[in-house]
């Protein structure tokens, strides 16, 4: 069951790489939040109820409800066009994502056998690099933020992998998530939307050396 969930998570990355519309990105992010909750639910066996409630709040309420709602609000308020406008065609994106996943699988095989389930490692690292790829290849600031949220999801998967030994790290991961998301989304995306009317990274090139 755990592996099925993680593979669905991986598939959601492929879907994200060929997605065209902004709302699709938001929906996939919401789906990933719910998947993460079930992964946590099945993986963390000896967890106390309080911690489980915290994870529930973080994944379901925060990741798949509050953040998507806020992103939709931003999209609407700033009249952001519906297209994702990647620099590269979707087909190339799909190939690059596939290459990332294959590379992490090869990397995971070179790692010495630890107590870690390799599936977690592959999903987490490929989510991380796919998120970085999204940041590099998309034109809008809001897609950069979504790329960052994807990275956060990958980190959460990784923190679940060690969650049974060190529950403290899962809580730290949740803290990172909420802190960074609130900082980036709340404070700056709002502000940037007010100042730069059409949110495009090409407008953020005024800081120059001369």
């Amino acid at each position, binding site marked *: 069951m755990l592996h099925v969930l993680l593979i669905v998570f991986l598939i959601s990355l492929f879907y994200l790489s060929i997605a065209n519309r902004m709302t699709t990105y938001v929906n996939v992010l919401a789906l990933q939040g719910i998947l993460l909750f079930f992964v946590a639910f099945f993986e963390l066996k000896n967890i106390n109820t309080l911690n489980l409630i915290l994870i529930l709040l973080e994944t379901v309420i925060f990741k798949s409800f509050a953040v998507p709602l806020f992103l939709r609000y931003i999209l609407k308020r700033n009249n952001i066009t519906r297209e994702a406008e990647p620099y590269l065609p979707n087909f190339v994106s799909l190939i690059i994502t596939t290459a990332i996943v294959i590379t992490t699988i090869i990397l995971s095989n*070179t*790692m*010495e056998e*630890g*107590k*870690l389930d390799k599936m977690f490692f592959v999903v987490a690292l490929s989510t*991380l690099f796919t998120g*970085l790829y999204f*940041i590099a290849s998309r034109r809008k*600031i809001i897609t*950069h933020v979504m790329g*960052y949220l994807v*990275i*956060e999801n990958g*980190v959460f998967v*990784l*923190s679940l*992998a*060690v969650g049974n*030994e*060190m529950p*403290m*790290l899962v809580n*730290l*991961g949740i*803290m*990172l998530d909420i*802190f*960074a998301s609130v*900082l*980036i989304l709340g404070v*700056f995306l709002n*502000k*940037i939307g007010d*100042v*730069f009317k059409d949110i495009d990274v090409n407008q*953020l090139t*005024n*800081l*120059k*050396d*001369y």
Partner: protein
Amino acid sequence: MITIYLIAAVLIGTGLFLNRGKALNYTLICLFLVLQCAFTVYACLHYTETTANYFTFDSLGLIMLLTATIISIPAVFHSYIYIEESEEMTPRSRATYFGAIVFLITAVSAAYLANHIAVVWIFTEISTLSASALIYHHRNKLALEGTWKYVFICAISITFVFIGILFLSLSFVNAHSDDLSYKNLLAHSSLLNSSWLRLAFLFIFTGFTAKLGLFPMFTAGVDAKDKAPGPAAALLSSIVMCMGFVGIFRIYVIVANTPLLHWASLVVGIAAFLSLFIATVYMIKVKNIKRMMAYSSVEHMGLVMLGMAAGGIGYYAAVLHIVLHAFVKSSLFFQYNQLYKVFRNKNVYHLGNYFKYNTTGAMVVLFAFISVTAMPPSGMFVSEFLIFRSMFEANQLLLLIVVLLLLTLIIWAFAKSIFKILFIPAVNFDESTVPVISPWRSTSQFILLGGAAYLGLNPPMIFVDLIKTSIALLPH
């Protein structure tokens, strides 16, 4: 004690955010300085003790804490001048500015002393938040762009550090312990799984480079220093960089005690050399004097890390160099505000003949230039020379020659701009609007520069001992 310090600092910081009254603001910030000094004295008196479980007053932390406290006093003084003379100042922006300064200094001080990697990480996060408030001080388009880039890159780098911590915990599984304090990690360094430790080191190192200002994440710091007010930029290029250094140094100590030492020094060395190279390329090109100073910081961090990679006497030189750099670079940034006041511009083309308009300030710029390019009698001459010696002893002769060539280019590029500013008149400059600047405002810069020269040329025995104890755990 540290709990009291943190609680008091948080109370003062919150008080600053909430109160807009001028007198109250300055009372609170002075109160914070007293608190910071008292805490530093307490830390010195309780050397090597551990408080509140997660903080140890060890030698490296103490050196950095002393540096931070010494720099924070002139930083607040220059912030006062800056804020009061700024035309766009509102009570709200003043309150936010000083509140952010308090949180930044507190977070950085706590990060120096933390003995647990997760605690260092938490305070790094807090420092990002407070630094972004400082960078966004002007609330215009460019400041927003700088802040956005800083926040975004720092958020990614913090995530990287967290991933590194997760890998570290994975490499630690064999030790049957869940305590990720540096002491415990060091005690079990032989049990650490080397392939996981490799990944952990790569991620933690890359993450902290955003704070240290090293390749690959250096860009955030440069934009931030360009847009932040002068005194805040001084803090960003001194104590925040020291925080990045502490973060990397402590994990490096652990890796150095495993068979991965050679590999880790290679990674650090490559990043350091690339930083030096990039700094050279940009410094030849850059015309914005504030960004030039920021790139010069990138160069010096490259040198510090080259010392770390070379080992031997290089460890000593690295710690000495980063302390001296903090003093020198902060005084240069403090001086920058006077420069900007005279010329109302930061492009080198529009600056010139500074000696005529502000003689004392021009002398500070000249001395700071001599210090920062490590010409004798600058203190940094000593540390840089030791770094070169360590590279020579590590048989890195070719690398040393290339580094020296790059440094020559940097000195040429820096000197070209600085001497233009000091001696060659600027075209179409209207002299009638030049304000008179009191020479007394440069006192702190002279003290910092003199202190850096003193520490470099004739270091007090206690300072040498502190550095030697902090590097004692590294293999020699």
